């Protein structure tokens, strides 16, 4: 019986991008993903993915599917390129190139953290790569988030094991609660959250506010953070509700920045998996903007309020290329693609629920394909292929780009 072990594999199950996974392959299937959490184990699964190629629901050759995808895109009046999950940065770079060539709108899963990204664009950031938080922080404040559910290994890997010299405070904001086992808890009413952050920032800046009553716990928290040698704030960059409050995201950044006066502070924004942080990085270096880029004018434009979701809902888009796993698409984007002329190139493309005209199953980046992915803190990591798989997304997307022809937009 053949058994292979692949070490140091990077998992894209969430934004933690743990790169210490030991994958065991027996008889062509993944039988173990050592060190992986439950999310990671599910993400690897047994490594079996469909390898279908479909045009209008019928099995087709790769050649025909690529031709059809290119044709559909070239004929589009208002195309969209959407970068979904589980593709490498290398494939993402090709996807943006297609958007550029087609004068398309380009958006990605990075848009799910739009509030945090926009706040960082307005104010900047006070942050750290996660290992530095583990190394330096003597106080970690989990702001309305418990990483254990959606980022199961975050605490163990990035904020460190519990120890006497590190205090953990959980801030509960309505139903969004900090970790259960926090050393201390602070409760803030949802309607008070932005005000509480502003008051904390004023305290940190040295304002002698007479904040009594319901803001007292927040004031005390601010003073506690000022006494720390290196404070970390961990907040969720991926809002669980659709109504991401831009004021809240900005107030968190402002507080973290202000804390660097009296002490040091880093704000870590938790971001989900599938290499969405890679899409953010690639779009930024190729276009200058992190998501919601529109090439319609022949140059990259930034339309953060008119991303894929809005364009699709408004009926503006007539054709789309989805690069990545359709299962990772936000629900409203997947719904919006229904009835449009769509090509999907990515893992389990053939299982897309919105009936794409072209579906080309590819391997999963990090399981069947190598390349590069970014951790939620923008640290780049290599991906390793544990198994052979369907055609590589990078190759398929590149071939589609080459087929678009050199002379569009004369």
């Amino acid at each position: 019986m053949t058994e292979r072990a692949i070490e140091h594999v990077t998992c894209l199950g969430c934004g933690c991008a743990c790169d210490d996974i030991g994958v065991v392959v027996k008889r062509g299937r993944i039988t173990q993903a050592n060190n992986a959490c439950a999310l990671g184990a599910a993400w690897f699964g047994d490594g079996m993915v469909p390898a279908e190629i479909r045009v209008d629901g019928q099995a087709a050759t790769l050649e025909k599917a690529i031709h059809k995808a290119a044709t559909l895109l070239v004929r589009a009046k208002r195309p969209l390129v959407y970068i979904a999950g589980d593709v490498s940065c290398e494939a993402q770079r090709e996807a943006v190139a297609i958007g550029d060539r087609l004068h398309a709108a380009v958006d990605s899963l990075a848009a799910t953290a739009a509030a945090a990204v926009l706040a960082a664009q307005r104010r900047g950031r006070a942050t750290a790569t996660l290992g530095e938080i583990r190394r330096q922080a003597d106080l970690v404040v989990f702001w309305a988030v418990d990483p254990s559910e959606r980022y199961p290994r975050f605490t163990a890997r990035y904020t460190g094991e519990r120890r006497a010299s590190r205090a953990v405070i959980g801030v509960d904001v309505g139903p969004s609660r900090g970790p259960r086992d926090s050393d201390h808890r602070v409760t803030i009413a949802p309607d008070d959250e932005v005000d509480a952050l502003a008051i904390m920032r004023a305290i940190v800046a040295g304002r002698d506010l007479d904040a009594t009553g319901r803001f007292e716990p927040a004031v005390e928290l601010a003073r506690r953070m000022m006494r720390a040698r290196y404070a970390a704030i961990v907040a969720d960059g991926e809002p669980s509700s659709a109504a991401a409050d831009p004021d809240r995201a900005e107030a968190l950044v402002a507080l973290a920045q202000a804390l660097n006066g009296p002490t040091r502070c880093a704000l870590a924004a938790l971001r989900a998996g599938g290499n969405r942080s890679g899409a953010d990085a690639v779009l930024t270096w190729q276009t200058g903007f992190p998501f919601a880029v529109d090439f319609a004018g022949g140059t990259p434009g930034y339309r953060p309020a008119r991303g894929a979701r809005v364009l699709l809902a408004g009926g503006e888009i007539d054709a789309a290329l989805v690069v990545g796993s359709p299962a990772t698409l936000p629900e409203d984007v997947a719904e919006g693609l229904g009835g449009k002329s769509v090509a999907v190139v990515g893992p389990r493309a053939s299982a897309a629920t919105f009936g794409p005209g072209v579906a080309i199953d590819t391997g999963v980046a990090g399981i069947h394909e190598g390349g590069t992915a970014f951790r939620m803190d923008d640290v780049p990591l290599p991906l390793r292929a544990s198994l052979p798989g369907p055609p590589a997304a990078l190759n398929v997307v590149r071939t589609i780009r080459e087929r678009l022809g050199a002379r569009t937009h004369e």
Partner: protein
Amino acid sequence: MSSPARLRIAGGTVYDPTNGVDGVVRDVCIEDGRIVAELPRDAQRLDAGGMVVMPGGVDIHSHIAGPSVNHARRLSPEEHAADAMPAPRLEDGTLARSGTGGTVPTTFATGYRYAGLGYTTAMEAAVAPLGARHAHAELDDTPILDAGFFVLLGNDDYLLRQIAAGETARARDYAAWLLGVTRGYAIKIVNPGGVALWKGGGSDGTRNVTGLDDIVGSTSVTPRKILETLGAAANALALPHPVHVHCNNLGQPGNYATTLASMKALGGQRAHFTHLQFHSYGGERGKRWQSAAQDVIEYVNAHPETSVDVGQVMFGPATTVTADSPVEHLLATSTGGGRKWVNVDIELESGCGIVPYVYREKAAVAALQWAVGLELFLLAKDPWRVVLSTDHPNGGTFLSYPELIRLLMDRSYRDERLKAVNQKLLGGSALLDGLSREYTLQEIAIVTRAGPARLLGLTNKGHLGPGADADVTLYTSDADRAKMFATPRYVLKGGTVVVEEGQLRRAPAGQRLSVRPEYDTAVTKDLRRFFDQNATVSFANYGAEPVP
């Protein structure tokens, strides 16, 4: 024009300082991407009559790729919106890539715009090892330029531990290993020890070093020890470029003393001190600033082992981006704050600080900085060791090089500009006293090409002798030197015409410049243990080499 395998650039006035050619009318012959001594008479000709011919420009210090640069890009969407660039149509009819500019352009725009200025080689000046893979990916998307990057060392935990333990040989092996796994080109030191203190937490007063003998954690670790250890390592490894040093106390009044002390600490061995302008201020900390350019450049003039680039400040928008994160905190919070500010502490290694900034000629400090840079240029005795840079995009963007060249070549223009700037802090400045020097075209060719290529150890760059890469820039001579250098008539990269009268014609991929020094591999055993205990990235995944 097409780009044949053989090409004779005929009858241009050639400036090739490396080969002692100073404004001589002669032909430059190209075959298969290289300069050759002669070609058959029937080889295709490019008539360069009346044109100035120089090697392609070489930027020794520029921030163009990697995590810090991308953070800076993300920070200024409004700049990008204001400077959107359509995809250029190439000679073969295909479209290149669109992009956006501003002070931190996108990767494709960076490649095209550098080439548009006649620059064909550039060094990204500061990449944390953890971000090396990212920097390479960006350089892969930066066409035309042959490029490499400097790897940040000098605040990294592993190195400081080796210094504390007196393990000099292991520190050297580590530096060599790191350059290899990151596919970097040279060792970069930024505010040695200061960034490590900033990351270590606490309040003001303990979060930076103030001089070469401040203690960094362990009593046996000081900025001086860091400089000595890495300076010696770079020389022992015979790296093509020595340590590239950003001194302590950047931007502080009175910092020239630290700068001179740093140069002396590395005295007698090759070392490069970068953006010297930001390190040449007199006065006292927290008090009045003045120029100390003369003191600093006199030391450089007298020490042939020391080289510098200037880091000229040019009036207008800039983005300050540096691994010297405590300095950026100071900048962000001075003058009332309210500026956009990014700080990223990079685990075990380095930092990153970013503040968008505008240098105004009516602002006293900006005017002083502008004057200090010009003094350094104009008082330098050996142009081979004083390279033209703006520390793009810190002192201004690389697009301001033509304007800077005009300031150096045209005294009357310079004097006119000097009258317009705030003179409050210029007392004692040699510039105010009147500096009559005007750079010659040959000297410009040295400070923008031949000098940086030599200092980088790029033997095939910066000159037009047989065997050199056929990177050639042709300018139409113009009394307005800014105009002349802003729009080359032709730019050839590896023998290929890439730019013709401001139009991008071809956009080939550039080459990557990297080193792989040898070392005692015993160090990797210790490193593996260090990684297992301290790092969040697996040892096997670290660096930028392809994985199986």
